């Protein structure tokens, strides 16, 4: 028996989930950072019917020294992609372990305006101590120290998104007022290590609140719209999903699919000559498109969505697009977003009320 239709996300950073993915890419390494690259992948994902793309990031370059790989900031890539797509959701990865929450909030709110309500945010941590040196700050040593940074950063960003009520811009000619200052709010956040005053400089995002995704063991469930859960097999994914406590749960699934040229296992073995495929304790499907369809069918009973991590984007995305999504679509197992809808609507999430909105109905002053 199948569950309800799945929301499908795909991670499109770099050349794929494997550290040596660039070896099998369809382009030379020095074309990775060309603007058309990110936009082209996004277009393929949008046409295939994915609900969401995510863009991994961190302040340190991927690929360990002495072989760093170039990576444009996820928010900048997301904004560029948003301007060249129309339907797909776009969620950059932005850690707030060291970043300024005020800037992060502004950037993400801007992305939501640019994309007309298609933006999300994948909250992660800067785990490596070198990241602190990049920011010129004392390192946050361990998981116990990083968790409060994420919690406070998300809290500040979310409060700032509410600091403008939806109708704060009134353009009242009669009173010469552009803003109704009663509909703007200081957030007055005070955490353990810092305080933020507000209000935001960016008006409230079209979605009210962006869709916030993250691991429920790293970010409090109450702050997440979508939990990203991991597990080596469907049973452990189901267990993690059952305990997530968030409105939506997505399973993380790594895929290496059979292509017309090589079996998934052969492609993995080929890349193993250069580097191991990093084990993130995630469900991994190496094999046929049909096998993946069956796996997703099984997962649809336990989760609302799946985020796919293709081994090599240039190879796997084509198979996903030509075989996997059409098969899921035929079996009504995929929820394809409709043009003109926000990411929240696509995921079946309500537009949240504003925490600061005044209870009394204000007289229209226009």
């Amino acid at each position, binding site marked *: 028996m199948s569950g309800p239709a799945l929301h499908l996300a795909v991670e499109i950073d770099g050349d794929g989930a494997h550290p040596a993915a660039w070896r099998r*890419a369809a382009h030379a390494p020095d074309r990775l950072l060309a603007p058309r690259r990110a936009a082209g992948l996004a277009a393929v994902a949008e046409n295939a019917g994915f609900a969401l793309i995510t863009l991994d990031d961190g302040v340190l370059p991927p690929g360990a020294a002495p072989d760093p790989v170039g990576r444009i900031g996820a928010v900048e890539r997301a904004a560029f992609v948003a301007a060249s797509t129309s339907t797909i959701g776009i969620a950059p990865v932005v850690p707030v372990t060291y970043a300024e929450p005020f800037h992060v909030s502004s950037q993400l709110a801007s992305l939501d305006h640019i994309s007309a309500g298609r933006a999300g945010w994948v909250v992660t941590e800067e785990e490596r101590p*070198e990241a602190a040196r990049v920011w010129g700050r004392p390192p946050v040593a361990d998981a116990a120290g990083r968790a409060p940074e994420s919690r406070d950063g998300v809290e500040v960003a979310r409060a700032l998104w509410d600091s403008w009520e939806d109708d704060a811009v009134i353009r009242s000619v009669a009173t010469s007022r552009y803003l109704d200052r009663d509909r703007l709010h200081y957030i007055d956040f005070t955490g353990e290590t810092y305080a933020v005053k507000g209000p935001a*400089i960016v008006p409230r995002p079209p979605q009210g609140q962006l869709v916030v995704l993250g691991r429920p063991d790293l970010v409090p469930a109450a702050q997440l719209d979508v939990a990203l859960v991991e597990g080596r097999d469907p049973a452990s994914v189901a267990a993690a999903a059952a305990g997530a406590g968030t409105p939506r749960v997505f399973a993380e699934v790594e895929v290496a699919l059979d292509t017309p040229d090589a079996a998934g296992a052969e492609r993995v073995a080929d890349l193993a000559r250069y580097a191991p495929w990093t084990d993130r304790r995630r469900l991994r499907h190496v094999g046929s498109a049909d096998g993946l369809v069956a796996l997703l069918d099984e997962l649809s009973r336990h989760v609302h969505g799946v985020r796919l991590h293709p081994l090599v984007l240039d190879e796997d995305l084509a198979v996903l697009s030509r075989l996997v999504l059409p098969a899921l679509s035929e079996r009504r197992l995929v929820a394809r977003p409709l043009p003109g809808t926000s990411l929240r609507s696509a995921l079946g999430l309500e537009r949240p009320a504003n925490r600061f909105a005044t209870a009394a109905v204000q007289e229209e002053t226009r």
Partner: protein
Amino acid sequence: MTRTDPLDVPRPHAQLHFGVFFQGVNHWTIWSAPDSGSQIDPASFRKVAQTAERGLFDAFFLGEGLRLREVDGRIHDLDVAGRPDAITQLAALAAVTRRIGLVSTSNSTFNEPADLARRLSGLDLLSEGRAGWNVVTTDNAWTGANFRRGGYLDHADRYRRAEEFLTVARALWDGWDDKAVATSVAAPAWSVPGAVRQVRHRGPQFDVDLAPTLPRSAQGHPVIFQAGDSGEGRDFAARNADVIFSAHGNDFDDALAFAEDIRRRLRAVGRPDDDLRILPGTEIIIGATEEEAQEKKRWIRLQQVTPATALGIAGLLWGIDLSGRDADGPLPAEDPVVAENDGSFRARRIADPRAVVAEWRAKAEAHGWSLRETVIALGPQRGHVGSPSGLADKFARFVRHGAVDGFNVTPYLIPDGLDDIVDLLVPELQERGVYRTEYTGGTLREHLGLRAPLTHRSAPGRQEAG
């Protein structure tokens, strides 16, 4: 049409450069007209940028706010407010424009070099060499209240931090050799071994150890803009900037004096005196005739200086809350409050309120002006008003005498405020040979006719930052 012989001037072949400054605050943007558009809808930004590109402008420019403006501790509600993060918005515009430069105003006090340098690099790569950075500084605790570090910086250190910030940013932008990235999937590694260097910097402002994350763009570095007008700010620009976004563009003699001062400062630091472009911010009001332009200006000023805005501007001068008074009545009878120089906005802007008020009274009485009419006539002034041919003659004179290299135009109407300039003024300038008829380069640096980034030059003429 009267024309001087174009060869009988100091710079007969000089070319005018236009930027457009999409403003996010202050009363110059008219929000009350029927065709006043959204200040946040991406379509507004796209329309202005694409119109500027149609008009062969060098750059599209965004400001930055890190805290909503307040007056007397309350959020200022009379002017446009609410705007996107600049680099994020510009990255989106990179996808829908092909040639125009994209300039972000970003603060060197409330950012960190690794993060900001990387964001600018990303914009530079996504736009294929069209990024610019307008370096601004802040020191106040009021802005700092929105940031982890709070208001930590002494006023005297703000340029020191900015300069050290630029030094680190440039080191990051130079961290990858040209051709550092492999050109084949069969290469030994993704980046050429040894072609990416760790950046270690220990100074009074920054103690960082960074792995640069991105290669150089087609223009080497983002183009550096700077707007400081104090002696310190001008010296900072002479040492570091590619473009000055000045406040000296209304009056020819003032503009020329400023330009000559900057050229002196450039020579003093060992740079060629044509190494920097001077683009004053300006408003341009165009009518079919001079009279029509003046009539349009009257309408625009009444939209910009609403009764409440007139009371706000006068209130700042008087040091008194005038809200609730009649802007269409006479000037306030009270004497202005003369406060200590407390570093406030008012104290910094108005040196001697009593003298200014005395002048306002005298002129208002002579002309029979109301308070609002007085504010319009004598308050903050800006811009050029005229017919297309009159303005083209005037601008040709400015640029051919080296008073400016162009203008950063602030439209009074979003998103259609550039239409007249592109459709009516640009052809007149082209006819006079002072404006390009097509883009000849692909990068912002090429549009502006700038040399290689300061750290990419061999001596002489090379001047390291810091």
